[in-house]
């Protein structure tokens, strides 16, 4: 049986998986900050909107969101390529989880820091921009890393809407070669390497951002 050709297919799938992960993470990151800060807004309407988004996307399963984006949105006149639908569903879903991380991290920056900002007469925006966010980013990072890995893993289910990601190509290889172990063992290892790369990158980032800050938080 010619495995090597199909392994090459799986590697092509790995590229698609990587694309989905990167684009999904980018969307998730934007949504996390927009919605996370939205929940802390002074304006009730903004808070309500952010809360609705977060609860909706955390509440309904990502599967349902994916099927909706893929099958139902076109009926409502929104045309998306499968890749767009995948990125949209994954990004919005993980973004909703990220929003809670952003909110939690911003709130964890103690009241004292905000009070020091008031005493120094900084505006709310200046306090957020120069004092709160720079400190909040660091505690967000580990959870963001976990969220990114969650997103990576969730890309496996986009195979259900015919995106030729890694899991999909493994299914193809399985159907064409009759072997289950080889394709799935291969993609397991690749997924794990991707996950290691993500957590390694996050740790490196964390180290860079905490330089000189050691011992600030016990």
């Amino acid at each position, binding site marked *: 049986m010619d495995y090597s050709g199909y392994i090459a*297919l799986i590697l092509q799938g790995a590229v698609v998986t990587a694309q989905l992960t990167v684009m999904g993470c980018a969307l998730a990151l934007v949504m996390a900050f927009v919605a996370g800060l939205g929940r802390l807004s002074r304006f009730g309407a903004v808070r309500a909107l952010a809360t609705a988004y977060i609860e909706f996307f955390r509440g309904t399963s990502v599967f349902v969101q994916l099927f909706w984006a*893929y099958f139902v949105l*076109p009926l409502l006149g929104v045309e998306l390529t499968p890749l767009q639908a995948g990125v949209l569903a994954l990004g919005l879903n993980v973004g909703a989880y990220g929003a809670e991380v952003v909110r939690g991290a911003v709130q964890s920056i103690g009241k004292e820091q905000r009070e020091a900002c008031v005493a120094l007469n900084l505006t709310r925006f200046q306090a957020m921009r120069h004092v709160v966010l720079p400190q909040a980013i660091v505690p967000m990072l580990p959870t963001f890393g976990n969220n990114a890995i969650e997103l990576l893993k969730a890309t496996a289910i986009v195979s*259900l809407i015919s995106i030729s990601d890694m899991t999909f190509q493994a299914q193809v290889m399985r159907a064409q070669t*009759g072997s289950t172990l080889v394709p799935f063992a291969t993609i397991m290892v690749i997924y794990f390497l991707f996950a290691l790369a993500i957590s390694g990158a996050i740790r490196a980032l964390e180290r860079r951002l905490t330089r000189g800050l050691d011992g600030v938080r016990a």
Partner: protein
Amino acid sequence: QDDPRIQELRDQGFARIAIANEPPFTQVNPDGTVTGAAPDVAREIFKRMGVDDVVASISEYGAMIPGLQAGRFDAVTAGLFMRPERCAAVAYSEPILCDAEAFAVKAGNPLNLQTFADIAAHPSATIGAPGGGTEERLALEAGVPRDRVIVVPDGQSGINMLQDGRIDVYSLPVLSISDLLKRAEDENLAMVAPVADAPVYCDGAAFRRQDTALRDEYDRILAEMKESGEFAAIIEPYGFSAAAAMSTSREQLCAGG
């Protein structure tokens, strides 16, 4: 010739077709290219229509018609057999690939299951079939209880489950089963074909309901090719019979005959 849909496809240079991950109806080569009886026919007909290429996406059976309706594909050429309800949901071409149903069973057919009715009559036999496919429906219609009809995601999973004793029968069209058994190279498995209480089914290319002009043009070229023998030359190497396709018609099949 002036149909705007056809012109649109010509301008875009390709047609999007949905195929299944099921040899020999469709086949994905190690280099990623797609062949198999259904896409080969489609590729040829679209070429003659002036559409240079087809872009195939592999899809679950259940997702094909919703995907077509949602505008994800221009046609489904996947061994999606014509049945009255499907004819109501999409516009089919004339018949293309015909096949009877088959069972894959343990060698020697220990439970002696020859028909869907046999399975229904047996107190515990379980059957695996693709979700939303013809076989699932045949089994349910024959009276097999829901909890003995196992929805199996794909052919390879079906064979694995049969080997592992998780199901007693796995049902697909004859050519699919024989292809799977060939790949499995397992002497403990055998085929029952054709299944007596299942009709011979034929698929056609499926289009959106409003794309009748496109479908008619497809039919015209298909008829030419059937006539000239080119049709047989494409599908027979894969084991399909051109004569079977030419002996029936959409009208007959969509009426449930």
